[in-house]
Protein backbone atom coordinates (compact mmCIF):
# COMPACT_ATOMS: atom_id res chain seq x y z
CA UNK A 1 0.00 0.00 0.00
CA UNK A 2 2.63 2.41 1.16
CA UNK A 3 4.81 1.62 -1.82
CA UNK A 4 2.21 2.66 -4.34
CA UNK A 5 1.26 5.87 -2.55
CA UNK A 6 4.81 7.06 -2.12
CA UNK A 7 5.67 7.77 -5.76
CA UNK A 8 2.35 9.51 -6.31
CA UNK A 9 2.96 12.06 -3.58
CA UNK A 10 6.50 12.42 -4.85
CA UNK A 11 5.36 13.45 -8.30
CA UNK A 12 2.73 15.74 -6.88
CA UNK A 13 5.35 17.33 -4.74
CA UNK A 14 7.81 17.93 -7.54
CA UNK A 15 4.95 19.23 -9.68
CA UNK A 16 4.15 21.75 -6.98
CA UNK A 17 7.69 23.01 -6.92
CA UNK A 18 7.81 23.81 -10.65
CA UNK A 19 4.40 25.46 -10.70
CA UNK A 20 5.32 27.45 -7.61
CA UNK A 21 8.47 28.52 -9.38
CA UNK A 22 6.55 29.41 -12.49
CA UNK A 23 3.99 31.38 -10.50
CA UNK A 24 6.75 33.29 -8.76
CA UNK A 25 8.46 34.00 -12.07
CA UNK A 26 5.24 35.18 -13.66
CA UNK A 27 4.57 37.39 -10.70
CA UNK A 28 8.04 38.90 -10.95
CA UNK A 29 7.64 39.49 -14.65
CA UNK A 30 4.22 41.03 -14.11
CA UNK A 31 5.62 43.37 -11.48
CA UNK A 32 8.37 44.55 -13.83
CA UNK A 33 5.90 44.86 -16.67
CA UNK A 34 3.57 46.97 -14.59
CA UNK A 35 6.42 49.11 -13.31
CA UNK A 36 7.78 49.89 -16.76
CA UNK A 37 4.32 50.80 -18.06
CA UNK A 38 3.86 53.03 -15.01
CA UNK A 39 7.26 54.57 -15.69
CA UNK A 40 6.21 55.55 -19.23
CA UNK A 41 3.00 57.07 -17.91
CA UNK A 42 4.90 59.05 -15.30
CA UNK A 43 7.13 60.30 -18.11
CA UNK A 44 4.06 62.04 -19.54
CA UNK A 45 3.52 63.87 -16.23
CA UNK A 46 7.22 64.65 -16.00
CA UNK A 47 7.13 66.07 -19.52
CA UNK A 48 4.55 68.69 -18.57
CA UNK A 49 6.43 69.69 -15.42
CA UNK A 50 9.76 69.92 -17.20
CA UNK A 51 8.36 72.00 -20.07
CA UNK A 52 7.04 74.53 -17.56
CA UNK A 53 10.21 74.41 -15.44
CA UNK A 54 12.69 74.71 -18.30
CA UNK A 55 10.93 77.62 -19.98
CA UNK A 56 10.58 79.38 -16.62
CA UNK A 57 14.28 78.84 -15.98
CA UNK A 58 15.22 79.95 -19.49
CA UNK A 59 13.09 83.07 -19.20
CA UNK A 60 14.34 83.84 -15.69
CA UNK A 61 16.85 86.43 -16.88
CA UNK A 62 14.18 88.43 -18.69
CA UNK A 63 11.71 88.19 -15.81
CA UNK A 64 14.41 89.33 -13.36
CA UNK A 65 15.66 92.18 -15.55
CA UNK A 66 12.31 93.69 -16.47
CA UNK A 67 9.95 92.48 -13.76
CA UNK A 68 6.37 93.54 -14.36
CA UNK A 69 7.59 95.89 -17.09
CA UNK A 70 7.92 92.81 -19.29
CA UNK A 71 4.15 92.50 -19.37
CA UNK A 72 3.20 96.17 -19.57
CA UNK A 73 5.81 97.79 -21.80
CA UNK A 74 5.21 98.07 -25.54
CA UNK A 75 8.85 98.62 -26.35
CA UNK A 76 10.42 95.51 -27.93
CA UNK A 77 13.85 96.66 -29.03
CA UNK A 78 16.58 94.13 -29.73
CA UNK A 79 19.17 96.83 -30.46
CA UNK A 80 18.80 98.56 -27.10
CA UNK A 81 18.15 95.31 -25.27
CA UNK A 82 14.81 96.36 -23.88
CA UNK A 83 12.00 93.87 -24.09
CA UNK A 84 8.38 94.57 -23.21
CA UNK A 85 5.85 92.06 -24.48
CA UNK A 86 2.58 93.96 -24.43
CA UNK A 87 2.30 94.16 -28.25
CA UNK A 88 2.67 90.39 -28.88
CA UNK A 89 0.41 89.60 -25.92
CA UNK A 90 -2.22 92.00 -27.25
CA UNK A 91 -1.81 90.61 -30.76
CA UNK A 92 -2.25 87.04 -29.54
CA UNK A 93 -5.39 87.85 -27.59
CA UNK A 94 -7.01 89.98 -30.33
CA UNK A 95 -6.36 87.49 -33.16
CA UNK A 96 -7.60 84.57 -31.05
CA UNK A 97 -10.76 86.39 -29.99
CA UNK A 98 -11.44 87.44 -33.59
CA UNK A 99 -10.99 83.80 -34.60
CA UNK A 100 -13.50 82.67 -31.96
CA UNK A 101 -15.96 85.37 -32.95
CA UNK A 102 -16.00 84.01 -36.51
CA UNK A 103 -15.48 80.31 -35.88
CA UNK A 104 -18.01 79.70 -33.08
CA UNK A 105 -21.21 80.66 -34.95
CA UNK A 106 -20.03 78.91 -38.12
CA UNK A 107 -19.11 75.75 -36.22
CA UNK A 108 -22.46 75.82 -34.44
CA UNK A 109 -24.20 76.10 -37.80
CA UNK A 110 -22.25 73.20 -39.28
CA UNK A 111 -22.87 71.04 -36.20
CA UNK A 112 -26.63 71.70 -36.42
CA UNK A 113 -26.51 70.94 -40.13
CA UNK A 114 -24.77 67.65 -39.46
CA UNK A 115 -27.05 66.50 -36.65
CA UNK A 116 -30.47 67.90 -37.54
CA UNK A 117 -30.73 69.33 -41.04
CA UNK A 118 -28.71 67.29 -43.51
CA UNK A 119 -30.18 64.15 -45.08
CA UNK A 120 -28.33 61.07 -43.76
CA UNK A 121 -26.44 60.40 -47.01
CA UNK A 122 -24.89 63.87 -46.88
CA UNK A 123 -23.68 63.68 -43.26
CA UNK A 124 -20.70 61.39 -43.74
CA UNK A 125 -19.14 63.32 -46.66
CA UNK A 126 -19.56 66.73 -45.03
CA UNK A 127 -18.19 65.52 -41.68
CA UNK A 128 -15.18 63.96 -43.42
CA UNK A 129 -14.58 67.15 -45.39
CA UNK A 130 -14.53 69.15 -42.18
CA UNK A 131 -12.10 66.64 -40.67
CA UNK A 132 -9.95 66.98 -43.78
CA UNK A 133 -9.71 70.69 -43.07
CA UNK A 134 -8.35 69.84 -39.61
CA UNK A 135 -5.64 67.65 -41.08
CA UNK A 136 -4.08 70.22 -43.43
CA UNK A 137 -0.70 71.34 -42.02
CA UNK A 138 -0.79 74.84 -40.59
CA UNK A 139 2.02 76.01 -42.86
CA UNK A 140 -0.30 75.49 -45.85
CA UNK A 141 -2.86 77.82 -44.25
CA UNK A 142 -0.04 80.32 -43.78
CA UNK A 143 1.08 80.19 -47.41
CA UNK A 144 -2.47 80.42 -48.65
CA UNK A 145 -3.02 83.38 -46.33
CA UNK A 146 0.11 85.15 -47.54
CA UNK A 147 -0.17 84.55 -51.29
CA UNK A 148 -3.90 84.25 -51.90
CA UNK A 149 -6.06 85.50 -49.07
CA UNK A 150 -3.89 88.50 -48.12
CA UNK A 151 -4.02 90.06 -51.62
CA UNK A 152 -7.75 89.24 -51.76
CA UNK A 153 -8.24 91.13 -48.48
CA UNK A 154 -6.20 94.08 -49.74
CA UNK A 155 -8.13 94.34 -53.00
CA UNK A 156 -11.68 93.57 -51.99
CA UNK A 157 -12.37 93.43 -48.26
CA UNK A 158 -10.13 96.07 -46.70
CA UNK A 159 -11.33 99.04 -48.81
CA UNK A 160 -14.92 98.04 -48.16
CA UNK A 161 -14.28 97.72 -44.41
CA UNK A 162 -12.51 101.07 -44.44
CA UNK A 163 -15.35 102.82 -46.22
CA UNK A 164 -18.26 101.41 -44.28
CA UNK A 165 -17.06 100.30 -40.84
CA UNK A 166 -14.32 102.93 -40.50
CA UNK A 167 -16.96 105.66 -40.41
CA UNK A 168 -18.76 104.23 -37.39
CA UNK A 169 -18.54 106.14 -34.12
CA UNK A 170 -16.58 104.52 -31.23
CA UNK A 171 -15.52 101.33 -33.07
CA UNK A 172 -14.53 103.15 -36.28
CA UNK A 173 -10.86 103.38 -35.36
CA UNK A 174 -10.70 99.58 -35.27
CA UNK A 175 -11.37 99.46 -38.99
CA UNK A 176 -9.24 102.26 -40.39
CA UNK A 177 -5.96 101.69 -42.13
CA UNK A 178 -4.21 101.16 -45.42
CA UNK A 179 -5.24 98.06 -47.40
CA UNK A 180 -2.09 96.05 -46.70
CA UNK A 181 -3.78 92.67 -46.79
CA UNK A 182 -1.81 91.36 -43.85
CA UNK A 183 -2.69 92.27 -40.29
CA UNK A 184 -4.70 91.24 -37.27
CA UNK A 185 -8.00 90.83 -39.12
CA UNK A 186 -6.45 88.58 -41.78
CA UNK A 187 -4.70 86.54 -39.09
CA UNK A 188 -7.96 86.26 -37.16
CA UNK A 189 -9.80 84.97 -40.24
CA UNK A 190 -7.09 82.42 -41.10
CA UNK A 191 -7.08 81.25 -37.45
CA UNK A 192 -10.86 80.98 -37.56
CA UNK A 193 -10.67 78.65 -40.56
CA UNK A 194 -8.07 76.58 -38.72
CA UNK A 195 -9.96 76.13 -35.44
CA UNK A 196 -13.40 75.73 -37.03
CA UNK A 197 -12.98 71.97 -37.64
CA UNK A 198 -11.93 71.37 -34.01
CA UNK A 199 -14.89 73.21 -32.53
CA UNK A 200 -17.25 71.66 -35.10
CA UNK A 201 -16.18 68.11 -34.36
CA UNK A 202 -16.61 68.57 -30.59
CA UNK A 203 -20.05 70.15 -31.04
CA UNK A 204 -21.08 67.48 -33.55
CA UNK A 205 -20.04 64.73 -31.18
CA UNK A 206 -21.77 66.13 -28.10
CA UNK A 207 -24.94 67.02 -30.02
CA UNK A 208 -25.13 63.40 -31.10
CA UNK A 209 -24.87 62.28 -27.48
CA UNK A 210 -28.21 63.92 -26.57
CA UNK A 211 -30.73 61.13 -25.81
CA UNK A 212 -33.12 60.67 -28.73
CA UNK A 213 -36.08 60.37 -26.34
CA UNK A 214 -35.51 63.94 -25.16
CA UNK A 215 -35.52 65.29 -28.69
CA UNK A 216 -38.46 63.16 -29.81
CA UNK A 217 -40.52 64.30 -26.83
CA UNK A 218 -39.92 67.90 -27.82
CA UNK A 219 -40.84 67.19 -31.45
CA UNK A 220 -43.98 65.39 -30.26
CA UNK A 221 -45.02 68.54 -28.39
CA UNK A 222 -44.83 70.42 -31.66
CA UNK A 223 -41.40 72.04 -31.40
CA UNK A 224 -39.65 73.21 -34.54
CA UNK A 225 -36.14 71.95 -35.33
CA UNK A 226 -34.67 75.24 -34.17
CA UNK A 227 -36.56 75.06 -30.86
CA UNK A 228 -35.31 71.53 -30.28
CA UNK A 229 -31.73 72.68 -30.90
CA UNK A 230 -31.95 75.85 -28.84
CA UNK A 231 -34.11 74.64 -25.92
CA UNK A 232 -33.26 70.95 -25.65
CA UNK A 233 -29.93 70.10 -27.28
CA UNK A 234 -27.99 73.21 -26.29
CA UNK A 235 -28.96 73.29 -22.58
CA UNK A 236 -28.20 69.57 -22.30
CA UNK A 237 -24.71 69.95 -23.80
CA UNK A 238 -23.88 73.47 -22.63
CA UNK A 239 -20.73 72.72 -20.63
CA UNK A 240 -19.28 70.50 -23.34
CA UNK A 241 -20.01 73.11 -26.02
CA UNK A 242 -18.14 75.72 -23.97
CA UNK A 243 -15.38 73.14 -23.52
CA UNK A 244 -15.13 72.73 -27.29
CA UNK A 245 -14.90 76.48 -27.73
CA UNK A 246 -12.10 76.65 -25.16
CA UNK A 247 -10.32 73.84 -27.00
CA UNK A 248 -10.45 75.98 -30.13
CA UNK A 249 -9.22 78.99 -28.16
CA UNK A 250 -6.27 76.97 -26.88
CA UNK A 251 -5.37 76.02 -30.45
CA UNK A 252 -5.69 79.60 -31.65
CA UNK A 253 -3.50 81.03 -28.87
CA UNK A 254 -0.63 78.66 -29.61
CA UNK A 255 -0.86 78.53 -33.39
CA UNK A 256 2.43 79.65 -34.87
CA UNK A 257 2.99 79.18 -38.57
CA UNK A 258 -0.30 80.37 -40.03
CA UNK A 259 -0.14 83.53 -37.93
CA UNK A 260 3.53 84.21 -38.63
CA UNK A 261 2.82 84.37 -42.36
CA UNK A 262 -0.06 86.82 -42.25
CA UNK A 263 0.49 89.00 -39.17
CA UNK A 264 3.37 91.08 -40.54
CA UNK A 265 5.66 90.86 -37.49
CA UNK A 266 5.34 94.53 -36.53
CA UNK A 267 6.28 95.65 -33.02
CA UNK A 268 4.21 98.84 -33.09
CA UNK A 269 1.06 99.07 -31.12
CA UNK A 270 -1.95 99.94 -33.26
CA UNK A 271 -5.62 100.03 -32.50
CA UNK A 272 -6.73 99.19 -36.04
CA UNK A 273 -7.40 95.55 -36.88
CA UNK A 274 -6.18 96.19 -40.41
CA UNK A 275 -2.64 96.97 -39.25
CA UNK A 276 0.19 94.44 -38.91
CA UNK A 277 1.03 93.28 -35.43
CA UNK A 278 2.74 90.30 -33.84
CA UNK A 279 1.74 87.41 -31.62
CA UNK A 280 3.72 85.58 -28.95
CA UNK A 281 4.26 82.54 -31.15
CA UNK A 282 5.12 84.55 -34.27
CA UNK A 283 7.74 86.63 -32.42
CA UNK A 284 9.42 83.45 -31.15
CA UNK A 285 9.35 81.86 -34.61
CA UNK A 286 10.72 84.94 -36.33
CA UNK A 287 13.41 85.99 -33.90
CA UNK A 288 14.65 83.00 -31.94
CA UNK A 289 17.28 81.67 -34.33
CA UNK A 290 18.57 85.20 -34.86
CA UNK A 291 18.69 86.20 -31.19
CA UNK A 292 22.33 86.72 -30.29
CA UNK A 293 22.22 88.29 -26.84
CA UNK A 294 21.33 86.20 -23.81
CA UNK A 295 18.71 88.72 -22.77
CA UNK A 296 16.95 88.60 -26.14
CA UNK A 297 16.85 84.80 -26.11
CA UNK A 298 15.69 84.79 -22.50
CA UNK A 299 12.92 87.27 -23.32
CA UNK A 300 11.70 84.95 -26.10
CA UNK A 301 11.75 81.90 -23.81
CA UNK A 302 9.89 83.95 -21.19
CA UNK A 303 7.24 84.63 -23.84
CA UNK A 304 7.09 80.88 -24.45
CA UNK A 305 6.53 80.31 -20.74
CA UNK A 306 3.66 82.82 -20.69
CA UNK A 307 2.10 81.15 -23.73
CA UNK A 308 2.41 77.72 -22.15
CA UNK A 309 0.81 78.82 -18.88
CA UNK A 310 -2.09 80.57 -20.61
CA UNK A 311 -2.81 77.70 -23.00
CA UNK A 312 -2.50 75.23 -20.13
CA UNK A 313 -5.19 77.06 -18.16
CA UNK A 314 -7.47 77.37 -21.20
CA UNK A 315 -7.05 73.73 -22.23
CA UNK A 316 -7.47 72.47 -18.65
CA UNK A 317 -10.73 74.40 -18.38
CA UNK A 318 -11.82 72.92 -21.71
CA UNK A 319 -11.14 69.36 -20.52
CA UNK A 320 -12.94 69.90 -17.21
CA UNK A 321 -16.00 71.27 -19.02
CA UNK A 322 -15.98 68.36 -21.47
CA UNK A 323 -15.66 65.85 -18.63
CA UNK A 324 -18.76 67.26 -16.98
CA UNK A 325 -20.97 66.08 -19.85
CA UNK A 326 -19.51 62.58 -19.97
CA UNK A 327 -20.21 62.28 -16.25
CA UNK A 328 -23.85 63.16 -16.91
CA UNK A 329 -23.92 60.50 -19.62
CA UNK A 330 -22.69 57.94 -17.14
CA UNK A 331 -25.66 58.45 -14.84
Amino acid at each position, binding site marked *: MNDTVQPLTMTLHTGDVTSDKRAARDQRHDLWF*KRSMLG*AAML*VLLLLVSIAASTLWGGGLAFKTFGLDFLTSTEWDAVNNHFGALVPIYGTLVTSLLALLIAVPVSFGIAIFLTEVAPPWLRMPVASAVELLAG*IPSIIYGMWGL*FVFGPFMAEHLSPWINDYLGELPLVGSLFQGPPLGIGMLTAGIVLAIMIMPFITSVMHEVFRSVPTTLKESAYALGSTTWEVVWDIVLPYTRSAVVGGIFLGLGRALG*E*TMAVTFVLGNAQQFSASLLMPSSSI*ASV*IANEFSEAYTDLHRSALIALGFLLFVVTFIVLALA*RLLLMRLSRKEGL
Partner: protein
Amino acid sequence: MTGNERLYQIRAFKNRLAMVLSCGATAFGLIWLVWILLTTVINGFQALNLRLFTQMTPPPGTEGGLANAFYGSALMSAIALLIGTPIGLMAGIWLAEFARHSRLGTTVRFINDILLSAPSIVLGLFIYTGVILPLNILTNHQVGFSAIAGALALALLVIPVVVRTTDEMLQLQPSTMREAALALGVPQWKLTLQIVLRAAKAGVVTGVLLALARITGETAPLLFTAFGNQFWSSNLLKPIASVPVVVFQYAMSPFDDWHSLAWAGALVLTLFVLVLSLLSRLILLRNRLT
Protein backbone atom coordinates in the same frame (compact mmCIF):
# COMPACT_ATOMS: atom_id res chain seq x y z
CA MET B 1 -56.84 83.06 -32.90
CA THR B 2 -54.94 85.72 -34.83
CA GLY B 3 -52.47 85.90 -31.93
CA ASN B 4 -51.89 82.16 -32.19
CA GLU B 5 -51.45 82.32 -35.93
CA ARG B 6 -48.98 85.13 -35.58
CA LEU B 7 -47.02 83.17 -32.98
CA TYR B 8 -47.00 80.17 -35.28
CA GLN B 9 -45.74 82.26 -38.16
CA ILE B 10 -42.95 83.76 -36.07
CA ARG B 11 -41.85 80.32 -34.93
CA ALA B 12 -41.93 78.94 -38.44
CA PHE B 13 -39.98 81.93 -39.72
CA LYS B 14 -37.35 81.59 -36.98
CA ASN B 15 -36.99 77.93 -37.80
CA ARG B 16 -36.60 78.56 -41.51
CA LEU B 17 -34.07 81.31 -40.86
CA ALA B 18 -32.03 79.01 -38.59
CA MET B 19 -32.05 76.22 -41.16
CA VAL B 20 -30.94 78.58 -43.95
CA LEU B 21 -28.17 79.99 -41.73
CA SER B 22 -27.04 76.50 -40.82
CA CYS B 23 -26.80 75.46 -44.49
CA GLY B 24 -25.04 78.74 -45.18
CA ALA B 25 -22.50 78.09 -42.43
CA THR B 26 -21.75 74.66 -43.89
CA ALA B 27 -21.26 76.08 -47.38
CA PHE B 28 -19.09 78.84 -45.90
CA GLY B 29 -16.92 76.28 -44.11
CA LEU B 30 -16.51 74.07 -47.16
CA ILE B 31 -15.64 76.98 -49.48
CA TRP B 32 -12.41 77.56 -47.52
CA LEU B 33 -11.47 73.91 -47.82
CA VAL B 34 -11.98 73.94 -51.58
CA TRP B 35 -10.19 77.28 -51.96
CA ILE B 36 -7.14 76.22 -49.94
CA LEU B 37 -6.83 72.80 -51.57
CA LEU B 38 -7.29 74.21 -55.08
CA THR B 39 -4.64 76.87 -54.51
CA THR B 40 -2.17 74.31 -53.22
CA VAL B 41 -2.83 71.84 -56.01
CA ILE B 42 -2.70 74.40 -58.85
CA ASN B 43 0.42 76.21 -57.63
CA GLY B 44 2.07 72.99 -56.55
CA PHE B 45 1.52 71.06 -59.77
CA GLN B 46 2.98 73.89 -61.84
CA ALA B 47 6.22 73.58 -59.88
CA LEU B 48 6.26 69.80 -59.62
CA ASN B 49 9.00 67.98 -61.51
CA LEU B 50 11.54 65.24 -61.04
CA ARG B 51 14.27 67.66 -59.94
CA LEU B 52 12.29 68.19 -56.76
CA PHE B 53 13.33 64.77 -55.51
CA THR B 54 16.83 64.56 -56.98
CA GLN B 55 18.46 67.97 -56.43
CA MET B 56 19.45 69.96 -53.36
CA THR B 57 17.88 73.21 -52.19
CA PRO B 58 19.27 75.90 -54.51
CA PRO B 59 20.49 79.44 -53.95
CA PRO B 60 18.07 82.01 -55.41
CA GLY B 61 18.10 82.30 -59.18
CA THR B 62 19.23 78.73 -59.91
CA GLU B 63 17.33 75.53 -60.41
CA GLY B 64 17.11 72.90 -57.74
CA GLY B 65 14.91 70.63 -55.69
CA LEU B 66 14.16 69.68 -52.12
CA ALA B 67 15.90 66.30 -51.96
CA ASN B 68 17.91 67.08 -48.84
CA ALA B 69 14.82 68.46 -47.13
CA PHE B 70 12.79 65.34 -47.93
CA TYR B 71 15.59 63.19 -46.59
CA GLY B 72 15.90 65.28 -43.43
CA SER B 73 12.16 65.17 -42.78
CA ALA B 74 12.03 61.40 -43.34
CA LEU B 75 15.03 60.81 -41.08
CA MET B 76 13.73 62.95 -38.24
CA SER B 77 10.18 61.57 -38.51
CA ALA B 78 11.51 58.02 -38.39
CA ILE B 79 13.59 58.68 -35.28
CA ALA B 80 10.70 60.57 -33.67
CA LEU B 81 8.40 57.59 -34.26
CA LEU B 82 11.04 55.15 -32.98
CA ILE B 83 11.35 57.14 -29.74
CA GLY B 84 7.77 58.29 -29.31
CA THR B 85 5.83 55.13 -30.23
CA PRO B 86 7.16 52.76 -27.52
CA ILE B 87 6.79 55.39 -24.80
CA GLY B 88 3.29 56.30 -25.95
CA LEU B 89 2.34 52.66 -26.29
CA MET B 90 3.53 51.80 -22.79
CA ALA B 91 1.83 54.78 -21.19
CA GLY B 92 -1.35 53.94 -23.11
CA ILE B 93 -1.20 50.32 -21.92
CA TRP B 94 -0.80 51.47 -18.33
CA LEU B 95 -3.80 53.79 -18.63
CA ALA B 96 -6.08 51.18 -20.19
CA GLU B 97 -4.99 48.05 -18.31
CA PHE B 98 -3.83 49.21 -14.89
CA ALA B 99 -5.33 52.60 -14.20
CA ARG B 100 -8.69 52.73 -15.88
CA HIS B 101 -10.49 54.37 -13.00
CA SER B 102 -7.72 55.30 -10.58
CA ARG B 103 -7.10 58.91 -9.66
CA LEU B 104 -3.52 58.82 -10.96
CA GLY B 105 -4.77 57.41 -14.26
CA THR B 106 -7.33 60.20 -14.60
CA THR B 107 -4.61 62.76 -13.92
CA VAL B 108 -2.27 61.29 -16.55
CA ARG B 109 -5.11 61.16 -19.07
CA PHE B 110 -5.96 64.79 -18.31
CA ILE B 111 -2.36 65.97 -18.66
CA ASN B 112 -1.91 63.96 -21.85
CA ASP B 113 -4.99 65.57 -23.38
CA ILE B 114 -3.51 68.98 -22.62
CA LEU B 115 -0.15 68.02 -24.15
CA LEU B 116 -2.07 66.87 -27.22
CA SER B 117 -3.06 70.45 -28.03
CA ALA B 118 -0.20 72.31 -26.36
CA PRO B 119 1.50 74.86 -28.64
CA SER B 120 4.22 73.04 -30.56
CA ILE B 121 6.55 76.03 -30.56
CA VAL B 122 6.86 75.74 -26.78
CA LEU B 123 8.04 72.13 -27.24
CA GLY B 124 10.78 73.52 -29.49
CA LEU B 125 11.78 75.98 -26.77
CA PHE B 126 11.81 73.14 -24.24
CA ILE B 127 14.14 71.04 -26.40
CA TYR B 128 16.33 74.11 -26.91
CA THR B 129 16.75 74.83 -23.19
CA GLY B 130 16.59 71.21 -22.05
CA VAL B 131 18.68 69.44 -24.72
CA ILE B 132 20.55 71.80 -27.03
CA LEU B 133 21.99 74.14 -24.39
CA PRO B 134 23.29 71.35 -22.07
CA LEU B 135 24.61 69.39 -25.08
CA ASN B 136 26.36 72.49 -26.33
CA ILE B 137 28.11 73.00 -23.01
CA LEU B 138 28.97 69.30 -22.60
CA THR B 139 30.57 69.06 -26.04
CA ASN B 140 32.42 72.34 -25.72
CA HIS B 141 30.26 74.19 -28.27
CA GLN B 142 30.74 71.51 -30.93
CA VAL B 143 27.09 70.43 -31.04
CA GLY B 144 24.28 72.95 -31.25
CA PHE B 145 21.24 72.82 -33.53
CA SER B 146 21.06 69.18 -34.59
CA ALA B 147 18.90 66.59 -36.31
CA ILE B 148 18.57 64.56 -33.12
CA ALA B 149 17.19 67.60 -31.26
CA GLY B 150 14.64 68.09 -34.04
CA ALA B 151 13.68 64.42 -33.85
CA LEU B 152 13.25 64.70 -30.06
CA ALA B 153 10.98 67.72 -30.48
CA LEU B 154 8.86 65.73 -32.94
CA ALA B 155 8.84 62.72 -30.58
CA LEU B 156 7.23 64.95 -27.95
CA LEU B 157 4.39 65.49 -30.44
CA VAL B 158 4.10 61.77 -31.19
CA ILE B 159 3.75 60.62 -27.57
CA PRO B 160 0.37 62.19 -26.65
CA VAL B 161 -1.26 61.03 -29.92
CA VAL B 162 -0.13 57.43 -29.42
CA VAL B 163 -1.06 57.45 -25.72
CA ARG B 164 -4.55 58.66 -26.51
CA THR B 165 -5.31 56.17 -29.30
CA THR B 166 -3.72 53.21 -27.51
CA ASP B 167 -5.69 53.95 -24.36
CA GLU B 168 -8.95 54.27 -26.30
CA MET B 169 -8.39 51.21 -28.49
CA LEU B 170 -7.41 48.91 -25.60
CA GLN B 171 -10.42 50.03 -23.57
CA LEU B 172 -12.65 48.99 -26.47
CA GLN B 173 -11.49 45.37 -26.22
CA PRO B 174 -14.06 43.17 -24.43
CA SER B 175 -13.19 42.28 -20.84
CA THR B 176 -14.45 38.72 -21.39
CA MET B 177 -11.33 38.17 -23.49
CA ARG B 178 -9.11 39.28 -20.62
CA GLU B 179 -11.05 37.15 -18.12
CA ALA B 180 -10.81 34.08 -20.34
CA ALA B 181 -7.05 34.45 -20.60
CA LEU B 182 -6.63 35.08 -16.88
CA ALA B 183 -8.72 32.00 -16.08
CA LEU B 184 -6.27 29.92 -18.12
CA GLY B 185 -3.48 31.22 -15.91
CA VAL B 186 -1.87 33.52 -18.47
CA PRO B 187 0.31 36.09 -16.75
CA GLN B 188 -0.73 39.72 -17.06
CA TRP B 189 2.15 40.80 -19.31
CA LYS B 190 1.49 38.02 -21.78
CA LEU B 191 -2.23 38.77 -21.72
CA THR B 192 -1.61 42.44 -22.47
CA LEU B 193 1.05 42.08 -25.14
CA GLN B 194 -0.07 38.94 -26.92
CA ILE B 195 -3.84 39.04 -26.59
CA VAL B 196 -5.25 42.51 -25.91
CA LEU B 197 -2.66 44.46 -27.88
CA ARG B 198 -2.90 42.03 -30.78
CA ALA B 199 -6.67 42.39 -30.86
CA ALA B 200 -6.32 46.17 -30.89
CA LYS B 201 -3.54 46.18 -33.48
CA ALA B 202 -5.43 48.06 -36.19
CA GLY B 203 -6.38 50.84 -33.83
CA VAL B 204 -2.89 51.20 -32.46
CA VAL B 205 -1.41 51.35 -35.98
CA THR B 206 -3.93 54.07 -36.78
CA GLY B 207 -2.61 56.06 -33.84
CA VAL B 208 0.94 55.83 -35.15
CA LEU B 209 -0.20 56.90 -38.64
CA LEU B 210 -2.07 59.87 -37.16
CA ALA B 211 1.04 60.82 -35.19
CA LEU B 212 3.09 60.67 -38.40
CA ALA B 213 0.53 62.87 -40.14
CA ARG B 214 0.75 65.32 -37.27
CA ILE B 215 4.54 65.66 -37.32
CA THR B 216 4.83 65.76 -41.12
CA GLY B 217 3.63 69.32 -41.35
CA GLU B 218 5.09 70.63 -38.10
CA THR B 219 7.35 73.60 -38.62
CA ALA B 220 7.48 75.57 -35.41
CA PRO B 221 9.36 73.08 -33.20
CA LEU B 222 12.00 72.49 -35.92
CA LEU B 223 12.93 76.13 -36.49
CA PHE B 224 15.41 76.24 -33.65
CA THR B 225 16.09 72.58 -32.98
CA ALA B 226 16.95 71.08 -36.40
CA PHE B 227 17.43 74.59 -37.82
CA GLY B 228 18.16 73.93 -41.53
CA ASN B 229 20.90 72.94 -43.90
CA GLN B 230 21.48 73.80 -47.53
CA PHE B 231 23.25 70.51 -48.18
CA TRP B 232 22.66 66.79 -47.84
CA SER B 233 23.43 65.70 -44.30
CA SER B 234 22.95 62.47 -42.38
CA ASN B 235 24.89 63.54 -39.32
CA LEU B 236 22.52 63.45 -36.38
CA LEU B 237 24.65 65.96 -34.49
CA LYS B 238 24.57 68.58 -37.25
CA PRO B 239 21.73 70.85 -38.41
CA ILE B 240 19.51 69.24 -41.02
CA ALA B 241 17.00 70.50 -43.58
CA SER B 242 13.31 69.64 -43.36
CA VAL B 243 10.48 70.23 -45.82
CA PRO B 244 8.26 72.46 -43.64
CA VAL B 245 11.13 74.71 -42.57
CA VAL B 246 12.37 75.08 -46.16
CA VAL B 247 8.82 75.82 -47.31
CA PHE B 248 8.53 78.48 -44.61
CA GLN B 249 11.85 80.14 -45.48
CA TYR B 250 11.27 80.00 -49.24
CA ALA B 251 7.71 81.28 -49.02
CA MET B 252 8.80 84.24 -46.88
CA SER B 253 11.61 85.09 -49.34
CA PRO B 254 11.20 87.65 -52.15
CA PHE B 255 12.32 85.26 -54.94
CA ASP B 256 9.83 83.79 -57.40
CA ASP B 257 11.70 80.53 -58.06
CA TRP B 258 11.87 79.92 -54.31
CA HIS B 259 8.13 80.56 -54.09
CA SER B 260 7.37 77.88 -56.66
CA LEU B 261 9.63 75.40 -54.85
CA ALA B 262 7.77 76.23 -51.65
CA TRP B 263 4.44 75.49 -53.36
CA ALA B 264 5.77 72.18 -54.65
CA GLY B 265 6.91 71.24 -51.13
CA ALA B 266 3.56 72.33 -49.71
CA LEU B 267 1.71 70.15 -52.24
CA VAL B 268 3.79 67.08 -51.39
CA LEU B 269 3.25 67.68 -47.65
CA THR B 270 -0.51 68.07 -48.10
CA LEU B 271 -0.85 64.99 -50.29
CA PHE B 272 1.21 62.92 -47.87
CA VAL B 273 -0.90 63.99 -44.88
CA LEU B 274 -4.16 63.39 -46.74
CA VAL B 275 -3.06 59.93 -47.85
CA LEU B 276 -2.07 59.08 -44.27
CA SER B 277 -5.41 60.16 -42.85
CA LEU B 278 -7.29 58.28 -45.58
CA LEU B 279 -5.20 55.19 -44.90
CA SER B 280 -5.85 55.30 -41.15
CA ARG B 281 -9.57 55.72 -41.78
CA LEU B 282 -9.55 52.74 -44.16
CA ILE B 283 -7.79 50.56 -41.59
CA LEU B 284 -10.34 51.48 -38.93
CA LEU B 285 -13.25 50.94 -41.30
CA ARG B 286 -12.04 47.53 -42.46
CA ASN B 287 -11.47 46.53 -38.88
CA ARG B 288 -14.99 47.52 -37.93
CA LEU B 289 -16.46 45.52 -40.80
CA THR B 290 -14.73 42.23 -39.97
